[in-house]
């Protein structure tokens, strides 16, 4: 067993990261957290997380960037807002999780076992080119790129969906595709 530091030292903090967390939409009240743990007990995924939501909030506001951005927690968060509904301080925990995901994708620090970033990029690409998302196409793309869906027995499910007429044979699309591109490019300053 490797001996590791179990208590975080003050010197490992990254104050810039802590400032950034406070600056994101939803992060403004993070310092009001009283560490009560209501979020963690409401969260159905917390039993799978390496850091519970309460701990992520604490680590994030103190600036423990590496722990937070490298955690499984942010990828296990299913955006169900149960934590936020229970937080006595009305901290926007789900929005903070979103901001942490965006930052981790931007910095490329997500754990390799989660295909979330691939999926998110495919999703974004599909919207950029078509304006709408056709789920079975998205799933096929993911399958080709990660083979993750083997776990789910996708072929059986695919057949079932096909029989029930729930598959789309052509990807859906908006008519005004160039408008979508103009808007999204404008955000990038293009």
């Amino acid at each position: 067993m490797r001996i590791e530091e179990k208590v975080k030292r003050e010197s490992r903090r990254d104050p810039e990261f802590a400032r950034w967390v406070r600056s994101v939409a939803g992060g403004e009240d993070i310092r009001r957290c009283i560490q009560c743990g209501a979020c963690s007990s409401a969260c159905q995924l917390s039993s799978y997380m390496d850091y519970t939501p309460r701990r992520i909030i604490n680590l994030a506001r103190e600036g423990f960037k590496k722990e937070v951005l490298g955690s499984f927690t942010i990828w296990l968060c299913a955006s169900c807002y149960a934590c936020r509904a229970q937080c006595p301080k009305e901290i926007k925990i789900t929005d903070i999780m979103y901001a942490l995901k965006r930052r981790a994708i931007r910095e490329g620090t997500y754990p390799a076992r989660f295909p979330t970033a691939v999926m998110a990029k495919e999703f974004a690409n599909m919207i950029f080119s078509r304006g709408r998302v056709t789920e079975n196409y998205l799933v096929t793309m993911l399958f080709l790129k990660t083979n993750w869906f083997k776990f789910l027995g996708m072929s059986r499910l695919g057949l079932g969906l096909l029989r029930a007429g729930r598959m789309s044979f052509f990807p859906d699309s908006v008519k005004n595709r160039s408008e979508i591109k103009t808007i999204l490019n404008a955000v990038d300053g293009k």
Partner: protein
Amino acid sequence: MKYLYYPGCSLKGTGRAYEESWLEVSKALGVELEEIEDWNCCGSTPYMGVDEVKSLALAGRNFALAERQGGMDIIAPCSACYLSLNKTNHVLNDYPELRAKVDSALGSAGLKYSGRIKVRHPLDVILNDVGVDKVKKLVKKPLGLKLAAYYGCQITRPYSDFDDPVRPVSMDKLMEAAGAKPVPYSMKTKCCGGSITGTVPEAALELACSLLKEAVKRGADAMVTPCPLCQFNLDGYQDRISKKYGKTEMPVLYFTQALGLAFGISPEKLGINRCLASAEKILEISR
């Protein structure tokens, strides 16, 4: 009563039975719908995790189109759409810097949004605009079923103003009006894991499984849901869940399908045959 209608991608894809049954039911109830012309994806759950401003701008385009089309309340039946559209309104009103960015992105395509269109859910519209009395009058074949009303997460929180975020009752009331007996179902707003089934199946399937098992334990004949992602997760993966955690048989209907059956609309028109789990059982019940 006239509304703008935002179907979203799921209702045109794997959740088309939701659209089919919702359109039938809204016609019966006299809810007039006008689809937003050339609507685009709302950004759903994943996009917010990739790019905040783009996600808001995508939702913003739908609002801008809706405003051009008269600016009536928008009805968004899909929970993820309902949430992202509502969220966009809130964020645009609460964060001026983000609003400025979204305005300028929309402006580059000649679009504009005031930030004032209301986003509604069918449950809200049926209960508060149409009213339970009208629903009761339309019932021709009272359901007589025991139903577990499962709401899922994203319509009841954090922005919904028509029901309780943790212990909602709107769908139970409607099902009662349709002649069904809602069973006490304590997991009504627990997350089904739908948004992570694709990426973390080992955790998500277990969540879905516990929802199904609880419905069985409560003696429900079927579950009803207002969300295409929940329906897909509970219905589409039921086979897989049965294999992994032991046999589970639980039909999962959209609440609009159940309502339609009570109104005497034919199962074909309501897309009942599109359910994967125990579709036969549902058809039997609905006869």
